[in-house]
C-alpha cells in the first residue's frame, strides 16, 4: 500500500493535537479569544481520551463551600492524590485557583455539575480534612465540550493522527498529520503558529494486568505518548518520567475510578486492613487505594494477599448509588455491567483489587505558568510533567494554554512549511513501512517493548546493569522495528506509529531512571538504596539537543 498525500496545507493559528478534555478546553478558550483553531483528534472528540465516557470527581475549590483560607485549601488538596510531590507549587495554586471557573463554564454548557442540586464533594479526601472532589455527572462531557468548541468556531478534524512537529529557527511552525479515516492513510500538512500537545499519558508502555490483551488498561489505551515523543524529537524538555507510578483497581479488569467504590480495603476474611476508616463511607470513599496504590502488589508479594474491595457492609442505598449512578457518571459502568451479567452480588461477595503496572500519567512536558514549553509556540496540557490535578488540572491548564496561545500567535509571523525538509523525510519513512509486503506486526514490537520496560526498568528492582542492558536492548528493538514493521491499512499504520512513539518514551524514561541514583517511591535502585535528601522536591528533566541528551535536576517554582 502507498500513502496518499493531501495537496492542500491546513493553515491555522493554533493546532491542538488531541481532543480530550484538556484539548477541548484549550480550543474553547482560544476560540473565545477569536483566533483560528483546529483540533486534530485521532478518534472522535465526542468519545475520546481519558474522559471519553465520563468522570465524577472534579477537584475544585469553591470559596462558598471551603472558606477563604486559600493556603489551608492548598495544604489539604496537596494531601490528596491530586497533590503530593512532583508538582510545582505555583502550578498547583494556578489550577486550584481557577478550578471553580471551569466548573461554572461546564455547568453553563450542560454538564451536570450538581446532580444532587447542591455542590456535593465525595471521595479522594483525607478523613478530617475538607472534601474537594466535586461529585458531578460527566456522562455527556465530551459531547458538550465538542458542541461548545464548534460554537466558538473551532474546526475539528477527527481520525487525524499527528506524528511530527515542524520547527523553524527554534520555534514551532506546523505539524505532520495522517488522516486514518479511510483504509489508505493520507498525509496532511498543518501550518500553525502555535501547537498544543494534549495527547494524554502513555498507556501500553508496560505490560498490563493481562499482557496478552494490551488494551485492558485503566487509562485510555489510545493514549500512547505521541505528544511526549513528538516533544522529545522537537527538543522540548520533559519532566519526571522516571517517577511514573501505577494505579489500582479490579484485578484482571483494569478500570480507573477506584475512588468511586464505596467499601473497605479488606483481607480474604473481610477484615479491613487500613487504619483510615472502619465502615464504608460515601463521603470519604476508599482513601486507602489513593494513599497506597501499591498495597495490592506489596501484600501479594509478601504473602498477605489477596486484597479485596469489600462492599458487604455498604448500605443497599449506597450500593445502588455506587453501581447505577456514580459508576455511570464516572464512565466505568462496564464494571456494573460485568457484575450484572455474572450475577455477582456485592452484598455478599468481595472483588479482588490489584496494583496496575507503571503508566505515564502526571509525567511529560515541563511547562511554565502559560502552559508553554521551552520551545516557543509548543504548549502542553493534560498529561504534563509538573502538574497533577487529574481532570481538573488537565482542563484548567488546557484553558490557560488556549488563552496563552491566543496572545502568543499575535506576536509571531506565519512561516510557510511547504518546503520544510522534514516533510519529505517523513513521507519516505511512512512509505517504507506501508510498501513492505511482509514483515513484523506492530504487536510483536509492542510486546517486546513491554517486556524490556518491565524487566529492565520495572517497579521491583532497578540498577545500573539492568539499565545498561535495557537501553541496549531498546536500541536493538528500535533498529529491528524500523527495518521490519509493516502495516496493511491505516489502522495498523496508526498502531505502528504509536509503538514507535512508545519506544522513544520508554528510552527517555530509562535514561532518566538510570541518572536518578537513589531510591524514591517505586524507583527502587538496589545499587542506591537510600533516598537522597538533596533531591527532595527536585524535578528531573530530559531534553534532546542535537544528538546529545541533557539531564538536569531543577528546583521547583
Amino acid at each position, binding site marked *: 500500500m502507498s500513502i496518499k498525500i493531501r495537496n492542500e496545507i491546513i493553515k491555522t493559528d493554533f493546532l491542538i493535537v488531541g481532543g480530550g478534555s484538556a484539548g477541548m478546553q484549550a480550543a474553547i478558550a482560544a476560540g473565545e479569544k477569536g483566533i483560528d483553531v483546529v483540533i486534530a483528534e*485521532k*478518534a*472522535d472528540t*465526542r*468519545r*475520546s*481520551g481519558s474522559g*471519553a*465516557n465520563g468522570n465524577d470527581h472534579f477537584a475544585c475549590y469553591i470559596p462558598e463551600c471551603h472558606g477563604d483560607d486559600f493556603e489551608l485549601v492548598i495544604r489539604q488538596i496537596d494531601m490528596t492524590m491530586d497533590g503530593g510531590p512532583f508538582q510545582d507549587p505555583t502550578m498547583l495554586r494556578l489550577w486550584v485557583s481557577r478550578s471553580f471557573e471551569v466548573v461554572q463554564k461546564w455547568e453553563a454548557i450542560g454538564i451536570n455539575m450538581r446532580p444532587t442540586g447542591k455542590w456535593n464533594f465525595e471521595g479522594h479526601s483525607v478523613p478530617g480534612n475538607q472534601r474537594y472532589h466535586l461529585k458531578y455527572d460527566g456522562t455527556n462531557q465530551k459531547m458538550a465540550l465538542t458542541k461548545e468548541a464548534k460554537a466558538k468556531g473551532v474546526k475539528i478534524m*477527527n481520525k487525524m493522527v499527528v506524528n511530527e512537529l515542524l520547527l523553524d529557527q527554534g520555534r514551532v511552525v506546523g505539524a505532520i498529520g495522517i488522516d*486514518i479515516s479511510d483504509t489508505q492513510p493520507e498525509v496532511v500538512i498543518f501550518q500553525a503558529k502555535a501547537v498544543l500537545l494534549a495527547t494524554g499519558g502513555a498507556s501500553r508502555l508496560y505490560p498490563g494486568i*493481562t499482557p*496478552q*490483551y*494490551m*488494551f*485492558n*488498561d485503566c487509562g*485510555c*489505551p*489510545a493514549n500512547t505518548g505521541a505528544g511526549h515523543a513528538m516533544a522529545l524529537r522537537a527538543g522540548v524538555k520533559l519532566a519526571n518520567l522516571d517517577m511514573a507510578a501505577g494505579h489500582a483497581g*479490579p*484485578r*484482571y*479488569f483494569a478500570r480507573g475510578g477506584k475512588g468511586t467504590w464505596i467499601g473497605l480495603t*479488606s483481607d*480474604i*476474611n*473481610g*477484615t479491613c486492613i487500613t487504619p483510615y476508616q472502619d465502615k464504608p463511607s460515601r463521603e470519604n470513599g476508599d482513601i486507602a487505594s489513593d494513599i497506597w496504590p501499591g498495597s495490592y502488589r506489596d501484600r501479594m508479594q509478601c504473602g498477605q494477599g*489477596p486484597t*479485596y474491595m*469489600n462492599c*458487604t*457492609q455498604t448500605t443497599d442505598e449506597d450500593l445502588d448509588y455506587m453501581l447505577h449512578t456514580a459508576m455511570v457518571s464516572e*464512565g466505568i*459502568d*462496564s*464494571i456494573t*455491567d*460485568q*457484575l450484572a*451479567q*455474572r450475577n*455477582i452480588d456485592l452484598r*455478599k*461477595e*468481595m*472483588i*479482588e483489587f490489584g496494583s496496575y503496572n507503571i503508566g505515564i500519567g502526571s509525567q511529560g512536558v515541563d511547562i511554565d505558568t502559560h502552559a508553554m514549553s521551552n520551545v516557543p509556540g509548543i504548549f502542553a496540557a493534560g498529561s504534563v510533567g509538573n502538574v497533577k490535578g487529574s481532570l481538573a488540572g488537565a482542563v484548567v491548564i488546557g484553558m490557560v494554554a488556549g488563552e496563552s496561545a491566543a496572545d502568543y500567535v499575535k506576536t509571531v509571523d506565519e512561516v510557510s512549511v511547504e518546503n520544510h525538509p522534514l516533510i519529505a523525510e517523513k513521507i519516505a519513512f511512512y512509505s517504507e513501512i506501508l510498501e513492505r509486503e511482509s514483515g513484523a506486526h506492530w504487536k510483536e514490537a509492542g510486546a517486546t517493548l513491554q517486556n524490556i520496560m518491565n524487566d529492565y526498568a520495572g517497579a521491583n528492582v532497578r540498577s545500573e546493569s539492568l539499565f545498561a542492558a535495557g537501553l541496549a536492548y531498546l536500541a536493538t528493538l528500535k533498529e529491528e522495528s524500523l527495518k521490519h514493521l509493516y502495516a496493511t491499512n491505516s*489502522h495498523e499504520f*496508526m498502531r505502528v506509529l504509536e509503538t514507535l512513539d512508545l519506544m522513544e518514551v520508554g528510552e527517555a524514561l530509562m535514561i532518566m531512571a538510570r541518572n536518578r541514583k537513589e531510591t524514591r517511591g517505586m524507583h527502587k535502585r538496589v545499587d542506591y538504596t537510600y533516598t537522597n535528601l538533596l533531591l527532595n522536591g527536585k524535578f528531573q528533566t530530559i531534553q534532546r539537543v542535537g544528538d546529545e541528551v541533557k539531564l538536569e535536576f531543577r528546583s521547583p517554582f
Partner: protein
Amino acid sequence: MPPIINKKKCVSCGYCAQICPVDVIKMEHKEAVVKYPDECWHCRACEKDCPKNAITMRYPLSHLMLNMKPLGGK
C-alpha cells in the same frame, strides 16, 4: 467477541465506527464489523451511543473480575 452487534437491529449508520475511541469497529461493505476485538477497551461508548440499541458488551474471560465471599463469615 466484544462488542456484539445485533445484525437484525443494526441499520449500518456507522456511528459506532465513528466514535469508538480505539478504532475497533470498521465499516466494511456498508456493514459495521468488530474488526479488532482484542483492542476493545470495553468502555461501552458504542453500546451507549447506538441509536438502535443494537450493541451489547461481552466481557471476555481474560477480563474476569475475581469475586470471593469473605472467609471470615459475613
